[in-house]
């Protein structure tokens, strides 16, 4: 059952064998199985030192509570495409596995599906960041993550884009679509829109950002942004094991918020929602925060009047983990989709509380290269296949990570031309006339 992870265990008491990808000897395919032939099957000791080390880390205590009911495995998105899951981590630890220095430490996307079903409340959402923080201190985090941390720390965004270009996406908006930069000219607004990195810097994110600007303007929302002074929300850095960097980002944003007068904050992304709503308060930032789907749902009556153009397509919707399981919102995005004339919603079988993770959470957004060695397909590819199977023409999303993730996955899973990926705000915008 654990052959794969066993093969990666420190090679004690055995020589280093060459593992070839394609070897057929006497008609028998033994590709890549060389290690397996030489790894010891028998457990000869229960070395508990790593388990003890892990459960001594503040936040990771519950790693020792697992009683192997295995409910987590049924819903773990990573086990679905690999061999990984909370209850397996516990057993590996019990048999002397060095989790903190293992690839498994980085495979969890903190999607919270395991915690949802865990009778013992083994809390991977606390365990993983706590243990990763240790690995980050030791310098053993995957290179892709270390680059991301460096970018966030130097530029205030994980992509390494120039912070001076954050507001540039507004440049080619027509004049009647105004987006205020409150950092330059402060004024009281009803809504402070936290735009987020992907909306600001990614080409497809720009499309959604512009759509949002148009929708807000048509609705007559009095809103503004922090312009170039917005930094990344920090939640992915926190979950990937950089609590210090999270605090640095959060403190900057809190300081910027303190300079403004606004009614509420509306975020483009569920990760920003989670950070601002659940994590900033302990650093002194207490706000009325909503995800954009929640905000628009509260103005549904006004919105409906503007949704004039039919969108005659079959659509399926992907629940973001950090909007759904982490923050309990399943209805708002569906209410918005339901308000679009002509749109037909086909749900995927893994939806709402049971939604399947796109793989981008908990730092996963920057670990696709690393993960490729440990899963048989990307989580996003798995999800795209499910979306295609519903017969939908459009995969609707409302997390800024997802348009680019799923568009890649549509291509890499061979579904190009079969499925379009659109942010809900793009669909609303289109229905309003674009």
């Amino acid at each position, binding site marked *: 059952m654990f052959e794969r992870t066993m093969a990666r265990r420190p090679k004690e008491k055995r020589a280093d064998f060459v593992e070839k990808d394609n070897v057929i000897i006497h008609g028998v395919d033994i590709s890549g199985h060389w290690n397996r032939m030489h790894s010891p099957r028998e457990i000869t000791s*229960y070395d508990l030192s790593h388990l003890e080390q892990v459960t001594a880390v503040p936040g990771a205590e519950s790693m020792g509570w697992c009683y192997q009911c295995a409910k987590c495995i049924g819903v773990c998105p990573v086990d679905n495409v690999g061999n990984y899951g909370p209850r397996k981590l516990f057993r590996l630890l*019990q048999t002397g596995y060095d989790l903190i220095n293992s690839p498994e430490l980085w495979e969890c996307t903190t999607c919270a599906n395991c915690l949802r079903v865990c009778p013992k409340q083994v809390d991977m959402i606390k365990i993983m960041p706590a243990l990763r923080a240790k690995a980050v201190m030791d310098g053993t985090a995957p290179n892709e993550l270390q680059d991301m941390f460096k970018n966030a720390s130097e530029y205030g965004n994980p992509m390494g884009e120039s912070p001076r270009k954050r507001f540039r996406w507004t440049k080619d908006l027509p004049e009647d679509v105004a987006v205020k930069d409150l950092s330059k000219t402060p004024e009281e607004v009803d809504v402070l829109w936290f735009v987020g990195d992907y909306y600001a810097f990614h080409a497809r994110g720009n499309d959604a950002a512009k759509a949002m600007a148009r929708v807000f303007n048509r609705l007559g929302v009095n809103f503004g942004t922090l312009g170039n002074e917005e930094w990344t929300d920090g939640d992915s850095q926190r979950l990937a094991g950089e609590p210090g960097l999270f605090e640095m980002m959060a403190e900057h944003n809190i300081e910027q918020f303190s300079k403004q007068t606004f009614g509420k904050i509306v975020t483009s992304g569920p990760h920003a929602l989670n950070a601002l709503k659940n994590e900033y308060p302990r650093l002194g930032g207490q706000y009325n925060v909503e995800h954009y789907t929640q905000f628009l749902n509260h103005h549904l009556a006004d919105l409906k009047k503007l949704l004039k153009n039919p969108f005659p397509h079959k659509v399926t919707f992907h629940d973001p983990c950090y909007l759904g399981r982490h923050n309990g919102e399943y209805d708002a995005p569906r209410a918005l989709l339901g308000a679009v004339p002509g749109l037909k919603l086909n749900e995927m079988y893994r939806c709402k509380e049971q939604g399947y993770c796109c793989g981008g959470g908990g730092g996963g957004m920057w670990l696709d290269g690393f993960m490729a060695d440990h899963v048989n397909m990307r989580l996003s590819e798995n999800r795209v296949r499910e979306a295609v199977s519903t017969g939908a023409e459009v995969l609707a999303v409302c997390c800024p990570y997802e348009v680019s993730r799923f568009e890649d996955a549509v291509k890499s899973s061979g579904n190009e031309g079969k499925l379009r990926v659109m942010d809900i705000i793009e669909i609303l915008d289109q229905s309003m006339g674009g």
Partner: protein
Amino acid sequence: MKPILVVGGGPAGLVAAAGAAGVGRKVILVEAKDKLGGNPIHNHYSVFTPNQVDAETAMKEILSPVEKNPNVDVRLSTMVTAVEGEAPNLKVTLKGAKGEEKVDVGAAVIATGFEHFDPGRETQVYGYYEYDDVLTLLDAEKMLKAKQFLRPSNGQKPKSVCFIQCVGSRDRQIGNQWCSKVCCGIASQQSIEVKELLPDAKVFIFYIDMRTYGFWEDDIYWKAQEEKKVNYIRGIVTEITKRGDQLVIKGEDTTMGRPMEVPMDVVVLSVGMEPSPGTKAMAKMFNLPLEHHGWIGRAGNSPLNTVSTSRAGVFVAGAAGGPADLEDSTSQGGLAALKAVGYLNGLKA
């Protein structure tokens, strides 16, 4: 007014005797040993599950109402050797230190309990009589009561201790197909005590299914795992061998799907319950049918009757009627007293 006979001075019998005496009935309490208290006293129980109260102290709560009670005639070192007639006219022969005596009793409560499975009797695979460091729950209980948990082979503190569950229970080969109900909880409780005495020891429990019903789940099992870092591993050990001066347990770690061969300083066998010799003897003497596992049977086939046998005026309480924990035993003791008194009162009406 004829007295009620209670056979067996363990938890069920003590509560039955005190219960009947408490409502004014005369009771003759017969105990084969020279002291009341049953298994908790004679087998040196350390603490009770799940609340970890000291066993000896707790037992005083049910011993003193009997010992100080003028309505209870306690006969120690006494056996029931013959029973004649039917209730309410039972003639019972008691054989004690002063010889034989025939007593007339109106009703009887059989509370002769269980005995612990002897791991040397049917199966030698765990080497109980071969290796000094292989213990039973009973041996461990005595050591834990004395607050000294050491390797019998060398008097050293063990660095690794494991429990093997279901020894003598759930076993068609041995002939004991029942679950003994308490062993999962008792092993977990003992593992907590071992960790309290030896915080550095690595403690393991090898199990098939953990059966810590009711409050024992979190008060004992979860506590052992979460607070005391006891390691529960699914798959009971197949056999024990010895390498040098250390035991080696062999089996499968089933949730890893791997064979296992691990050295262990001390192995505790979680032995289950069997009908005691007294229970078997009383079943014969009182002509009580056994249920199909060989314990004293209840009348009818309903879980709603826990104490009435198929003979009027004769009741069973506690582990004479099957595996029972202390709550079962004392609750049934009280109910048996009530039923016996009710039976006698009903005759008068």
